[in-house]
């Protein structure tokens, strides 16, 4: 066990302390933190209501209607009455100027402002309607109440009705997408590490004192810790930025279960995919040949990702969905997606985790054999069958 740990520690240190890694993490953290510091004034600036000047003499009667229209549209404008100058102009720090007559006002703007234009239009029409109702002897307030109540109710019918939850979809999608990228990135780091040892021939010294499976296991563990630190280096500043910008309160989906899912399936998916890729990487001898093995594997990895994105929202209770949930290479994507939709039973999650846990030693054994059989072979690419035969 201590040998695995020694190997893992070296991998972790080499990856984490490499200049390229430190610089890229530093840049990412700086961009997120500095970006949020810069963005803060802009984001909060939007909340300050803009002032619109209204000429008291000609358009003062419009102000209540303007206020009502702005509120109805959830737009933050303050309508301030002034005595407009003879030559109409938009004063500094204001959004516009409204000059009468009240039944056909003129809105002066510096630039296009569709919201304000709409508000003024609605307010003018309301004012005209109220005037007309009053002229006919009616009560404008009653008319307004009646109008407000005249809203249709929309009800969806049919199979899809109400099932598609876009919030759940995006939450699940975000989790499996992060997972996908972390797994792709870690797998390529593992593959490069395996081929580096092969290409530099240091592997022969290592194998004289360490079992192939131990070497591969230590590598996977070390790169796993590295991937965790990398992810934390991005998630922690991102959460800080979200908190600082006040975005956390707006997040309506419960974060806890999502993050738990991410953590559990990160560990399981990581073990499954990186062990597998690490074994396969031993088939090639040079960095430039990695593509021959990694490209088809990465493409294959997209299959569970896309199936999860497609199957879970469209067919949450289908047989394919239920079966694939229990297949090790699919589970890391299927389970978090189904969990986000709330369409998975507790026993299904437990079973999927159990099957993955049982598969990992088997997969490690197979990958270890491929690795052992291929790792001392130099020259061209080795066939999988030959590697298995030789170990």
């Amino acid at each position, binding site marked *: 066990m201590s*040998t695995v740990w*020694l*190997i893992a520690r*070296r991998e972790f240190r*080499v990856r984490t302390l490499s200049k390229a890694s430190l610089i890229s993490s530093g840049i990412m953290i700086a961009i997120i933190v500095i970006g949020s510091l810069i963005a803060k004034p802009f984001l909060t600036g939007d909340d300050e209501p803009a002032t619109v000047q209204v000429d008291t003499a000609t358009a003062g009667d419009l102000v209540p209607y303007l206020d009502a229209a702005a509120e109805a549209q959830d737009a933050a404008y303050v309508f301030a009455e002034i005595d407009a100058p003879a030559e109409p102009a938009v004063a500094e720090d204001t959004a516009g100027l409204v000059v009468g007559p009240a039944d056909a006002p003129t809105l002066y703007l510096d630039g296009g402002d569709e919201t304000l234009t709409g508000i003024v239009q609605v307010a003018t029409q309301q004012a005209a309607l109220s005037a007309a109702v009053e002229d006919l002897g009616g009560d404008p307030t009653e008319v307004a109440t009646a109008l407000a109540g005249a809203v249709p109710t929309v009800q969806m019918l049919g199979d899809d009705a109400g099932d598609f939850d876009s919030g759940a979809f995006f939450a699940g999608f975000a989790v499996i997408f992060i997972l996908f990228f972390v797994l792709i990135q870690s797998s390529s780091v593992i593959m490069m590490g395996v081929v*580096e*040892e092969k290409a*530099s*021939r*240091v*592997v*022969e*010294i*290592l*194998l*004289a*004192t*360490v*079992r192939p499976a131990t070497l591969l296991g230590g590598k996977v563990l070390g790169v796993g810790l590295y991937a965790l630190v990398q992810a934390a280096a991005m998630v922690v500043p991102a959460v800080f930025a979200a908190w600082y910008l006040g975005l956390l309160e707006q997040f309506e989906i419960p974060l806890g279960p999502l993050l738990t899912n991410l953590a559990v399936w990160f560990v399981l998916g990581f073990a499954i995919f990186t062990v597998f890729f690490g074994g396969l990487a031993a088939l090639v001898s040079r960095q430039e040949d990695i593509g021959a093995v990694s490209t088809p594997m990465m493409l294959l990895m997209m299959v569970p990702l896309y199936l999860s994105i497609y199957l879970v929202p469209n067919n949450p209770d289908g047989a394919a969905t239920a079966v694939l949930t229990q297949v090790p290479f699919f589970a890391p994507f299927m389970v978090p997606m189904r969990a986000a939709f709330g369409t998975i039973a507790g026993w299904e999650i437990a079973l999927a985790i159990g099957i993955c846990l049982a598969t990992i030693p088997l997969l490690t054994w197979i990958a270890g054999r491929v690795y052992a059989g291929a790792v*001392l072979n*130099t020259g061209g690419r080795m066939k999988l069958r030959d590697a298995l035969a030789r170990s």
Partner: protein
Amino acid sequence: MPDLRIDHLTKSYGELRALDDVSFTVRGGELFGFVGSNGAGKTTTMRIILGVLRADAGTVTWNEAPLDLEARRRIGYMPEERGLYPRMKVGEQLIYLARLHGLSAADAAAAMEHWTEVLGVAERRDTEVEKLSLGNQQRVQLASALVHGPEVLVLDEPFSGLDPVAVEVMSGVLREQAARGVPVIFSSHQLELVERLCDRVGIVRAGRMVAQGTIDELRATERPVWELTGSLPAGWADAVAGSVTEASPGVWRVEAADAAAAQAALASAVKAGTVTSFAEVRPTLSELFQGVVSEEVSA
């Protein structure tokens, strides 16, 4: 003294028989030279000793116990294809390798300091291996084989690519290790070096051990040859028993059944003219090796 015994090793790569019933023993404190043409099976034998390859048949025992992973961790190994992490610093790398062999952190650091000092790369401890000269990389490679205080040394072509100074350093280290009681086995194409350094030699050809023993044992021949130089008239040897041939002007090769017959030949020569030298010619390792290789060619 612990012996390293190689018993009846056989290994095939598909159709190719790389090793065919190879057996030899390296005693504790002994320098064993492993000689043979390229592809004769030296590297395969060493890889099997280290457990990097698996033999089809045969065993390797050390101290009369099978060489398992735990025992192999006490071997110092220098593979034919040199290999270290190119972008790892010399010191860190040696400590890492020492710890993989089971040393504690403190012992590993001390051993690293000792061996970088002895091998003259102490000032390079904080340099990445890929930035070292080839000669210094070789020294670090040797340090990596020694850093865990091995109880057996297996070195594949340790002298290849070394300058004369480094060859002396390497030779000195190997002698010291043998003097500690460590069985040392190394392969080399530099036969004079093997002859000078080794207690015993094994010659492999096409996967078979064709000759092994001490240098003296190997050089002993059934029909000894003497070389005689001098100024002698033609036909001086007509009366001599045995075969006398003129190898070059003024140099004769005398093949005699024993020392007495040789002395008789010398007496005839002295009677006939002037003899400037007379000595028994024993084949060098190089000549023995040539003999083995020519058998291989004619076979």
